[in-house]
């Protein structure tokens, strides 16, 4: 950590005198290699609740590093690759990995193809969410850009067809369609969330492996004739299997354990609007996500039969936000946002967390209530304010505050008491500071 801070300081001092943006090898039109990169270091502190890291104690496990190389090989062909590492509490662990790396053949302006690992299309900002300097805020609104899903929807390995359709006075329509695989790490945010979900159903899950069946994503962006206004819609559909060892909680009628293949399908869509006018930026997005869970247990024990009898269950989540930013000077931009997220669209008030009886098994007590869930664990409402300071064109410092109401999306393992019961506060405040240097 010390070395990263030293690197930040050193690069920052360097950037004070460097207007140049990149390192280039070779100045030929084709075959030359361009290198860009960035380093971010942040700090998080909350008064209650741990936001993906041990933020109640203050956490500097919040950093990112990326370096990319690219080359225009010919008129139509370009290749590039970015190495990226990040830490956010329990996620990332600072392990360098290929963030994106692909060959891009642009046959015509209206159609090109990319093959390799590409940033996945989702909303307006998913493709750039790893790069702090490209937005006003430190955190994108969690209602649409849930940190738990970040590693999975960061990139897709496969192929992409894209293009820009010029429509004269009606503006330009850009499209992207992607197909391939996304990654579901056993210790990643999605699998951890699913494990929390199964616990609520009375099943203790110990994931062993995951296998992606398919991932698809697509998006349309309409650059309207109104200068600065773009409208967008994106969708994704992913399906994966998780092999897990499942053990019945004591309160279930059938005790025992079983090897379970847990199949999850997620279909999400977003509708987005962005308007840039001089120093003013406005963005608003809506996202819905429909899950289908189907568990298949091996064997014919009572517990296995209990799991298999459940069939396919569905869950709908939704979130939306509006954000504004105003650039006062070359070095100062202020922003404000409001975001709402509901972990279960059909239970926005969190009633299922607090009723006495199990919602599916009359006569049994409600495991959510028994394990500490409260109504406010069903939502997250967030008022965020950001001050962005552009110290130089390549050196950015941000301060951000979030007044939060609710605790949905928070990881249960770092927000539980000694008895492993969920223990969150309804109203809490998160402070974030972050510095980024780029070249």
């Amino acid at each position: 950590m010390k070395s990263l801070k030293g690197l930040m300081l050193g690069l920052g001092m360097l950037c004070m005198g460097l207007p140049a943006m990149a390192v280039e090898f070779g100045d030929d039109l084709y075959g030359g290699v361009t290198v860009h990169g960035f380093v971010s270091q942040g700090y998080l502190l909350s008064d209650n609740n741990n936001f993906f890291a041990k933020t109640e104690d203050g956490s500097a496990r919040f950093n990112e590093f990326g370096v990319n190389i690219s080359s225009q090989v010919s008129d139509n062909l370009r290749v590039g690759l970015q190495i990226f590492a990040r830490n956010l509490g329990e996620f990332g662990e600072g392990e360098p990995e290929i963030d994106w790396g692909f060959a891009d053949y642009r046959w015509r302006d209206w159609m090109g193809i990319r093959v390799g690992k590409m940033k996945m299309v989702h909303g307006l900002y998913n493709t750039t969410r790893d790069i702090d300097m490209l937005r006003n805020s430190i955190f994108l609104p969690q209602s649409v850009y849930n940190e738990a899903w970040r590693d999975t929807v960061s990139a897709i390995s496969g192929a992409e067809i894209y293009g820009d359709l010029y429509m004269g006075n009606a503006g330009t329509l850009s499209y992207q369609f992607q197909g391939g695989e996304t990654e579901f790490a056993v210790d990643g945010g999605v699998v951890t969330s699913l494990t929390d979900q199964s616990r609520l159903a009375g099943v203790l899950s110990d994931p062993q492996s995951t296998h992606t069946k398919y991932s698809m994503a697509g998006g349309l962006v309409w650059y309207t004739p109104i200068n600065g206004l773009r409208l967008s819609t994106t969708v994704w559909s992913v399906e994966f299997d998780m092999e897990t060892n499942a053990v019945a909680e004591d309160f279930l009628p059938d005790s025992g354990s079983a090897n379970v293949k847990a199949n999850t399908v997620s279909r999400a869509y977003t509708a987005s609007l962005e308007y840039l006018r001089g120093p003013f930026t406005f963005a608003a997005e809506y996202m819905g996500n429909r899950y289908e869970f189907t568990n298949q247990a091996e064997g014919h024990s009572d517990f296995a039969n209990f799991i298999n009898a459940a069939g396919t269950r569905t869950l709908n989540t939704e979130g939306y936000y509006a954000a504004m930013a105003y650039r006062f000077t070359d070095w100062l931009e202020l922003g404000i946002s409001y975001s709402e997220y509901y972990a279960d669209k059909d239970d926005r008030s969190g009633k299922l967390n607090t009723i006495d009886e199990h919602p599916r098994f009359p006569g049994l007590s409600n495991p959510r209530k028994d394990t500490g869930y409260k109504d406010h664990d069903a939502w997250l409402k967030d008022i965020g304010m950001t001050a962005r300071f552009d110290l130089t064109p390549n050196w950015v410092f941000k301060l951000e505050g979030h007044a939060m109401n609710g605790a949905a999306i928070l990881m249960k393992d770092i927000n539980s008491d000694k008895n492993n019961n969920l223990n969150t506060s309804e109203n809490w405040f998160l402070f974030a500071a972050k510095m980024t240097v780029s070249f």
Partner: protein
Amino acid sequence: MKHVKLGALVLIMVAGLMGHALADVLIIANRGVSVASVSKSDLERIYRGQLSRWEDGSRVNFAILRGDVMDSFLSEYVRMSPAQFDQHWKRQVFTGRGQMPPTMNRPADMVTYVANTQGAIGFVPEGTRIDEVKVLGITP
């Protein structure tokens, strides 16, 4: 009548300002570029990375010139501020979808780049020596 005169005065002032802004910047191209003029919308698409070919299919290579002339050019033809333009291209760079356009700091450097680069287009302030390149007309 008083209001009519005032309105006419404002119109003349606005027209004067617009004429001045347009006269500030010359759009220059490599002599091998097959077109004699370019539309404002095509210029915008070129500098946003949405138009990469000339009419004959050859590649467009565009560059930028830092300074006041860049502010005028971007405002008039690309409808972006310099900060928005930089952010737009950083997004392309850090997602692998494009490369930063070559950046010049002096008008003479821009002329040299355009003169020596196939399919190149750029802009310089009026009054710059442009013997080695051709000036493109602008159509609405």
